[in-house]
């Protein structure tokens, strides 16, 4: 199968990416090639097989719920692009 430019635009929106027309054209072509390549998996006898999500499938690794020191807010905010009074600053979100 091949992927269309319209699908590329839909996926870009899901992934929160703005693509130029050039990028859209290139990704449409490249992704189609990669997806065609992935059709190779159809040659395998996969139908009745259980999927593997993880190499060492551990579930529910529990630990005691203990109170421990965590980061200071000031340490975390050091990397913020914009901050004020202990908060991350973003453009206005509600009218």
């Amino acid at each position, binding site marked *: 199968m091949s992927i269309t430019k319209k699908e590329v635009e839909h996926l870009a929106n*899901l992934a929160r*990416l703005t693509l130029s027309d050039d990028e859209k054209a290139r*990704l449409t072509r*490249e992704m189609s090639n990669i997806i065609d*390549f992935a059709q190779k998996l159809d040659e395998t006898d996969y*139908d009745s097989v259980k999927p593997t999500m993880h190499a*060492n499938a551990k579930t529910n690794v529990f630990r005691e719920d203990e109170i421990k020191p965590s980061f200071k807010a000031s340490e975390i905010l050091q*990397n913020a692009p914009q901050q004020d009074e202990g908060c991350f600053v973003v453009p206005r979100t509600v009218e």
Partner: protein
Amino acid sequence: MSELIFKTAHELADLLEKKEISSEELTNAQFERIEKTEKYIDAYISLNKEGALNKAREIDRKRAEGQKLSHLAGIPAAIKDNICTKGITTTCASKMLYNFVPPYNASVMDRLSDTPILGKANMDEFAMGSSTETSYFKKTKNPFDTGRIPGGSSGGSGAAVSASEAIFALGSDTGGSIRQPASLCGVVGFKPTYGLVSRYGLVAFASSLDQIGPFTKDIHDCALVLNEICGHDEHDSTSLDIPTADFTKALTGDVKGMKIGVPKEYIGEGVSDEVREKVLEAAREFEKMGAEVDECSLSMMPYSLAAYYLISSAEASSNLARYDGIRYGFRADGCTDVDEVFFKTRSEGFGDEVKRRIMLGTFVLSSGYYDAYYKKAQKVRTLIREDFNKTFEKYDVLLAPTSPCTAWKFGEKSADPLEMYAADICTVSINIAGLPAASMPFGVDKGGLPIGVQLIGKPLGDADIIRAGYALEVHAPKISPEIGGAR
């Protein structure tokens, strides 16, 4: 210049312990070397001279006071720039994290707290690539031929050790990102069993595949670094809670009776004649040393690359959703609403290869395609694991090429993503199955470029690889690059 930098970690550890040299002297020599050769190699994104020298002096003082130190204490190393180092910028070679200073250490860095950190090594952006060409900052050159790529994604780590710009290095391996640059740069690279080394503080690419591991000058050093970095960590729920082994016990040189399989699919089509010949030569050396060597078959190998790119891209698209320009890293200028912050930051902050993988991952996880691509790939993952399990009923270690070819020229595989992805054909299945594997140098091609052979172990068979590699190393020609007309 001091000859110290050409020594191995185990030689230096002895000299340090006997107080014949100091860590400060060694670390200074290492920076002198970097000053001289880095202009040809570009292995580092950032250097940490003051921090490294402070650490070296601290170790020297502790040693003088007779305090207990780790075996590798005071031996300086390069760290891939996707491993968080407290107070030292960690960029992932991306504009997205160009200014990110981690407020915490990755668990491996806490384990290596006696190590002077020389600097942060270059890599493909977010570890996505096989040549280190997708780095936002610079192109690292192969020390054996500066017109060629060092491999990737841990190209800076591989080149640094190869060019004697670090005694050892850490990298990360999601589909071959330690083993392939190790092979192309003529050094040892080891990807441990999944879960053996904590991933806490490793910037996530594909969490079910990522694993941290060492680049070293020889197998002995590899065992020593593994001894330091392996072990359970409560901060990583996938970390294995098992007793840690002493890998130096596997340095016996004895492979008598060891069963070694050479999977025929790995030396077939797509692998260069010279690489194939080296693998067969290594097989003959094992046989001469008394190992039982046989051809075997891993029939699922031809499907691993497609499964790998679907699974790893799916996980990447999910992991990289966190980069939104709000809490850390790059934020695009001039945005008037939050959605614009997300879109503009991500579009300007990520490079082409990262965008391609996010898009592919979003596609395979999206409604209507999930079963046909993502789930199918996960089922094939089961088949690949079963294929290995069956083979390891008969063999202790498998012998294969690491890379189907030696280092290529800059730009040679950049036009077509599928051509670049094919460079990982011999390595990705190991990550899919969670197995340990190493690449070790085994001679050069007719152009003088290093060829690596890959040793693959069963789950938690990491020590088997060390044992086989240590024995084979004796029969591998010693190779070292010439940089700027000198050693």
